[in-house]
């Protein structure tokens, strides 16, 4: 998407103005929906921003939500660079959670730092494994990765549903959850870490996995733009035929990007399960895999864009929670509407302004993206 859509236009236009216009359009339509249910969009934005950014408490929550979206956004973006669409973030994250639970519940005797490292590895490994099958099927059997990842989302829900009512269920509780984790298997929260440095911060779920998410974003940038493998990935995405001619195996690349996408999605569970829940619960992803699609499209596949888009969605989720409190009409579903509109305008309709406005600004016919 981004590589081929960039065309001949300057960066500030194709990576700056156009995405901003597309997202502005999404928010404009969302504003109309707010008006339609009889609320004031201006008030809504004010409450939303104050709730998300007006206090250290709000900022903590905003960053906590953003952490999740960075992981799932990268999961979508890395596959995008090779021309594949990974809709399976939801299922891969669930499996990541399972990986964490399996490590913690079986190896609880290990010293804390080692245990935590192993849980992160477990999350990445199971997420990657869940993405490997669709990736392999796409590469070697030609089954479309979009359809198989959708199917694997449902299969993941089925698998976790089965495990949490059956073999892994906490015996003394009615709810669908495993036994609580040992204290050693917990990522430190931001307020604890800042507290050691003598900085007071109210308690929020923001934890160390935020740093892990930023590391993953940095890793993605280095990998895609500064390594030979990244060059191969981008070549396959831009032109599989040319890649083949240059001796790059698009099958190998397909499997690799799906493995990495799955690992990123799986590590999303470190934020939810390891950082906050401290036990495996059902449906903890809550649609984060789909937010990842919006984030990746909005950030145009670039890690910097993804982090920024994740922060915006973090603001929306945290502000949206405050909004639901102050304006009962504005439930959290309003955020889902915005998310859908962002995917529509920044994704499916991304070329709507591109050619038209380029014609006005640059006064020349513009090569149309295929």
């Amino acid at each position, binding site marked *: *998407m981004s590589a081929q859509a960039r065309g001949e236009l300057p960066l500030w236009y194709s990576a700056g103005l156009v995405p901003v216009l597309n997202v502005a359009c999404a928010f404009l339509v969302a504003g109309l*929906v707010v008006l*339609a*249910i*009889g609320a004031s969009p201006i008030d809504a934005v004010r409450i939303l921003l104050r709730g998300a950014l007006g206090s250290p408490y709000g900022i903590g929550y905003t960053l906590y939500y953003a952490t999740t979206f960075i992981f799932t956004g990268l999961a979508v973006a890395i596959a995008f660079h090779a021309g594949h*669409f990974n*809709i399976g973030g939801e299922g891969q994250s669930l499996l990541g959670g399972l990986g964490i639970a399996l490590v913690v519940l079986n190896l609880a005797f290990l010293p804390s730092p080692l245990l935590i490292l192993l849980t992160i590895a477990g999350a990445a490994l199971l997420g990657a494994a869940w993405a490997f099958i669709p990736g392999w*099927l796409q590469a070697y*059997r*030609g*089954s*479309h990765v*979009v*359809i*198989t990842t*959708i*199917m*694997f989302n*449902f*299969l993941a829900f*089925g*698998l976790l*549903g*089965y495990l949490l009512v*059956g073999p892994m269920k906490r015996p003394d509780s009615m709810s669908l959850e495993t036994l609580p984790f040992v204290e050693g298997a917990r990522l430190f929260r931001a307020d604890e870490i800042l507290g050691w440095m003598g900085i007071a911060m109210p308690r929020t779920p923001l934890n160390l996995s935020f740093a892990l998410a930023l590391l993953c974003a940095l890793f993605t940038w280095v990998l895609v733009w500064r390594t030979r493998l990244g060059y191969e990935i981008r070549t396959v995405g831009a032109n599989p035929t040319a890649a083949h001619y240059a001796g790059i195996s698009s099958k190998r690349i397909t499997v690799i990007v799906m493995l990495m996408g799955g690992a990123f999605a799986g590590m999303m569970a470190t934020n939810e399960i390891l950082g906050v829940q401290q036990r495996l619960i059902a449906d903890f992803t809550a649609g984060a895999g*789909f937010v990842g*699609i*919006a984030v990746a*499209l909005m950030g145009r596949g670039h890690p910097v864009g993804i982090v920024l888009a994740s922060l915006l969605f973090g603001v929306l989720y945290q502000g949206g929670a405050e909004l639901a409190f102050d304006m009962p*009409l*504005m*439930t959290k*579903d*309003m*955020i*889902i*509407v*915005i*998310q*859908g*509109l962002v*995917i*529509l305008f920044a*994704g*499916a*309709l*991304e*070329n*709507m302004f591109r050619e038209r406005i380029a014609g006005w600004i640059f006064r020349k016919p513009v090569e*149309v993206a*295929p």
Partner: protein
Amino acid sequence: MIEFVSFMVVALDSAVRLSVPLLLACLAGMYSERAGIVDIGLEGKMLVAAFAAGVTAFLVPNPWVGMLAAIAVAVLFALIHGYASINQRGNQIVSGVAINVLASGLTAVLGNAWFREGGRTPQLPGHARFQEITLPGADLVKDVPFLGTLYSDIISGHSAPVYLCILAVPLTWFVFYRTRFGLRLRAVGENPHAVDTAGISVMKMRYGAVIICGILCGMAGAYLAIGQSAGFNNDMTAGKGFIALAALIFAKWRPVPALGACFLFGLLDAVAIRLQGVALPMIGQVPVQAIQSLPYILTVILLAGFIGKAIPPRAAGMPYSKDR
């Protein structure tokens, strides 16, 4: 034995009901994908349709008015997908995801704002819903073994959309394989350039297909909200649009096998509900999730080419532009 027969009669009867929304959505997807527009937004279109049906049937207590409203809204969403895919040549998968997410958010926001019942629409009285129809002679042959039971307990006693849906299968077959429109529609999905060369507008054909897709999704949604239930519930499609997509692949994009695939998936669902917590002789207790996952597992295996081969229409998912 008698226990097993009565179990099967009940299961088959509810399989008919459960497969109706699947079949309508599956046929909807078939029109769209056969014309080259990949549609993973069936779920979203069904959901907005179900919502529109629930709201309208509450305001105007007539199921047919509810269904018309459902069709209108589903067609509107289908046109958004059409505009993005056909005019804007956008990514059809992304557009489908957008439709699904938007539908899930909008129905919840509007439902909550209008009715304040947590996203549900008010319970509908009987005359605002599709009523069960007893087919002629059903009571007469009730006591005839097997065939009588089949007719009176399984075939008879469903609401009007069920019969419309079953009629839609031969109709779709006829349209696809016996009409000029159907030939062109299939050609547009396989080789749009050839169709264009023959002087037929690819754009018009694809819009036609997308609109038919919207109409059928509308019927599917209406059946969910005012046929199967007495109003709209939050996320009431619950993945049915994706099972329909699986059925579409399973049927290899053909109408008559689609009937079989949807009925099979409907039956799996019906059996899964009834087997919950029941220990079967020899096998023991089968996890419900295992049966519910079967449609997805079967579809993945089929897509992988281990049993037969599912080949999509050749131009599916590719935007058409004249100059290439």
